[in-house]
């Protein structure tokens, strides 16, 4: 296994994405999740390639497992993955499939792809941390507004709110792709179940970092990150 590379800057993410897509150029803004993922791994999550087994690490769950290139690019930029794996995206014996597999990819906490599984599993992880009185780590989950159609997410939102799971943070990328929409916005859906919820620009790194750095207040937290509508 080649030695992982040191951290690469945000400006390199387009080049890393191109290794997977084969495109000559790849604008980071073409990927709805990229800025949120970057802010999480660059400024928020206390996790690194050297502490993957540390019970005190922060956990990240990509619930929206579709289109994981941005996730892989950020993991590679932060040294979790060897860069050369990116070019093998989707190959028979690759580490990186079109949906991430925790058994294969270093740093992936939960394998995903079928929508509506990540947040419910993360509720279990947050309960597991609470049982073991690990009050420092947080569990951050990335979802999409269309993924919120899955009923299983609403089972999770209700229970996380009632149980006051303040280790849990849900970040929903809202590119208005839910077929029947979310009248009134998604923040209200979380707030009505007892979450702290706010809506910020999913392209504004400073706003995302601020929203994701709020102190815990006995409630789970939702950040709705709005990006350009899906074209």
């Amino acid at each position: 296994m080649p030695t992982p590379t040191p951290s690469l800057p945000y400006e390199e993410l387009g080049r890393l994405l191109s290794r997977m897509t084969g495109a000559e150029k790849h604008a980071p803004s073409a990927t709805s999740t990229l800025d949120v993922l970057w802010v999480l791994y660059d400024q928020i999550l206390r996790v690194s390639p050297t502490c993957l087994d540390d019970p005190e690490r922060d956990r990240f769950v990509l619930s929206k497992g579709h289109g994981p290139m941005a996730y892989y690019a950020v993991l590679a930029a932060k040294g979790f993955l060897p860069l050369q794996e990116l070019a093998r995206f989707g190959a028979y014996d690759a580490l990186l499939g079109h949906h991430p597999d925790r058994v294969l990819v270093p740093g992936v906490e939960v394998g995903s792809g079928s929508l509506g599984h990540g947040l419910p599993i993360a509720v279990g992880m947050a309960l597991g941390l609470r049982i073991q009185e690990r009050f420092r780590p947080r569990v951050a989950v990335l979802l999409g507004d269309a993924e919120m159609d899955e009923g299983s997410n609403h089972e999770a939102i209700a229970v996380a709110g009632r149980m006051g799971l303040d280790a849990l943070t849900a970040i929903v990328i809202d590119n208005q792709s839910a077929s029947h929409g979310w009248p009134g916005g998604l923040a209200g859906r979380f707030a009505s179940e007892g979450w702290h919820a706010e809506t910020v620009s999913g392209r504004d790194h400073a706003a995302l970092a601020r929203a994701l750095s709020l102190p815990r207040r006995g409630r789970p937290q939702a950040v709705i990150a709005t990006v350009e509508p899906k074209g």
Partner: protein
Amino acid sequence: METMRERFVSTTQSLLGSDPRLAVVLADISADAFEPARRQYPRRVINVGIREQLMISVAAGLALEGLRPVVHSYTPFLIERPYEQIKLDLCHQDVGAVLVSIGASYDWAAGGRTHQAPGDVALLDALPGWTVHVPGHPEEVETLLRAALPGRDRVYLRLSLQTNAAPHSLVPGRFEVVRRGRRGTVLAVGPMLDGVLSAVAGQDLTVLYAATVRPFDAKTLLATLSEPSIILVEPFLEGTSAHAVTSALTHLPHRLLSVGVGRAELRRYGTAQEHEAAHGLDARGLRERITSFLNA
């Protein structure tokens, strides 16, 4: 007599005290029975309400954090409704849990089809890595549960109100040789044993008792085989373990009679005993089918 569910609850409650990894996940079913345990261990007895998908996902999250989840509900709500969560959140994540069902195939026959799940073991059999226990007596529930809880693997315990009169001293994972005969072998699964013994009284048959069907103890089946005529009697979907028998006997021309719950929806209420008779699983039905098979 104490039911299998009562023994499951009392054993689990006692083990919560000795094993800090243990956590119980419920979806309202049996929440009352677990209330004393919840009061004693409020963080480790978790009732998510009537949310069976979440029940399995939460168990997976607990397992990812190093805990040993015990997940319990009525059979259709534990296995059928959250089947994709079992496939992905447990199997695909490569974590374990102990799933414990009540209701079996038709314990509450008057409850109708919504509360019957004869296909549960076949469904789990389509997924990798499951140990499947089908105890025939409350005593066996405790033995099998105590054996399952220290691990990290995936285990299913299928509890029922139908029981055999006496418990057997089990070696988990092994078929017990109840008696030996020369005309073939009957493999009786869990609560089917007493009915099988009654049905084959006077027949020169080997009787094996299986309180564990996965992994399938092919070794004991082969070691005790007199004549390659096998009769498989299971309290769930007919033929669920037929592939395991044929796989064990690939090298040998053999005959197999699979007896179990029929695939067609019976669409009748009444009692479990009436359903057993309708599926030919009572002593009389078994006797007729076994005799006809042996004389064919």
